[in-house]
C-alpha cells in the first residue's frame, strides 16, 4: 500500500524543484497570481517559521512584518503557483518550529545569521 501511495504522489506531483531551505531562513517566494485573465508575480519575503507535513502535502510557513503587523502565509511545497524561491539569508536557530517569533517585535525578533566557512 505504501508503494502505491508513493506511486500516486509521484503522479500528481507538480515537480517543483525548490532549493534546500530550513526554518529560520529568510526567503523570497515568487507566487503567481491569476487575476481574471491576467497573470502577475507577487513576491512574499520573510522568515520560514516551520516546514510541516510529509510527502506531497508538505507545507512551509513564511512570516513577515508588513506595516507593523505580522503576516504569515502557508505555501504548499507542491503548489504549481510557486514560480521561484530564493534564499537570501541562512538563519542560525535551535528549533524546528519558530513560534516564539510571534511574540517578539522589533530587534528581539531578529534571527542570527548562520555563517559557513569558506
Amino acid at each position, binding site marked *: 500500500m505504501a508503494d*502505491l501511495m508513493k506511486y*500516486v504522489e509521484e503522479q*500528481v506531483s507538480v515537480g517543483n524543484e525548490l532549493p534546500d531551505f530550513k526554518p529560520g531562513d529568510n526567503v523570497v517566494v515568487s507566487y503567481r497570481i491569476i487575476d481574471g485573465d491576467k497573470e502577475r508575480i507577487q513576491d512574499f519575503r520573510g522568515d520560514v517559521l516551520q516546514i510541516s507535513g510529509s510527502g506531497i*502535502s508538505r507545507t512551509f510557513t513564511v512570516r513577515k512584518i508588513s506595516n507593523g503587523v505580522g503576516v504569515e502565509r502557508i505555501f504548499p511545497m*507542491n503548489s*504549481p503557483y510557486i514560480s521561484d524561491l530564493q534564499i537570501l539569508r541562512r538563519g542560525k536557530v535551535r528549533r524546528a518550529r519558530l513560534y516564539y517569533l510571534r511574540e517578539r517585535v522589533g530587534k528581539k525578533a531578529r534571527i542570527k545569521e548562520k555563517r559557513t566557512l569558506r
Partner: protein
Amino acid sequence: MQGLIGKKIGMTSLFTEDGRNLACTVVQTGPCVVTQVKTIETDGYSALQLGFGERKAKNVSNQLKGHLSKSGDVISQKLVEFRDFEIEKSLGDTITVDDVFQAEDIVKVSGFSKGKGFQGVVKRHNFAGVNDATHGQHNRQRSPGSIGAASYPAKVFKGMRMAGQDGNRKVTTKNLKVLRVMPENNLLLIKGTVPGHKGSIVIIEK
C-alpha cells in the same frame, strides 16, 4: 448500474487546473473477476457477481470453493453482486478500472466506517452535554439528560438515542467525483473522503 470492489489505500491532495488544492482518496479498484452471471431466465433478475482480492484455500469452505471453481482458480476475498450491470461479461472474465470508470464520473462509495467502540451520546449523537461544571452540576458533563416524561407514557420510547457502539457500520457516501483513473496500477482517485480505514474493502458504484 455499474461498479467494482476496491480497497482503500490512503489519502493525498491534488492541484486542479483552476488552482484548487483538493483532498482525495486513493482506492485500488479491481481487477474483479466475474464469478456468477445471473439472468432473468434463470434467476428472475439480471446481475453480475464480482470477486475481488485473494484468500487462502484453507480458510474457505468447500461450498465457496466449489462455487468459485467455476470462474477460475483464484479464491476471491470479497464477493459482491451488482444488479443490471451495463457491461456484457461472461463467467471468468476480469473487469478493470478503466472498463468502468472515467475521470469526472460521479460515483457512490460504500464501506464500513472506522470502529469507535462503545461511545457516549456526545460523540455518538452530537449531544451538547451539560457544558457547566458548577451551578449544581457534578459528574454529569457528558450525560444525555432527560430520556422521557413521567407516569405518562411511563416508558422510554424505542429508538431513543443513547450510548452504544459507534462506527463500524455500513456507510455510503454519494456524489463523489472521480478525479483521475490510473489503470496501470488499478487505482482510482476520488475527490473527498471515503468510509473506512486504510486497507478496508469498499464498493464503488456509478
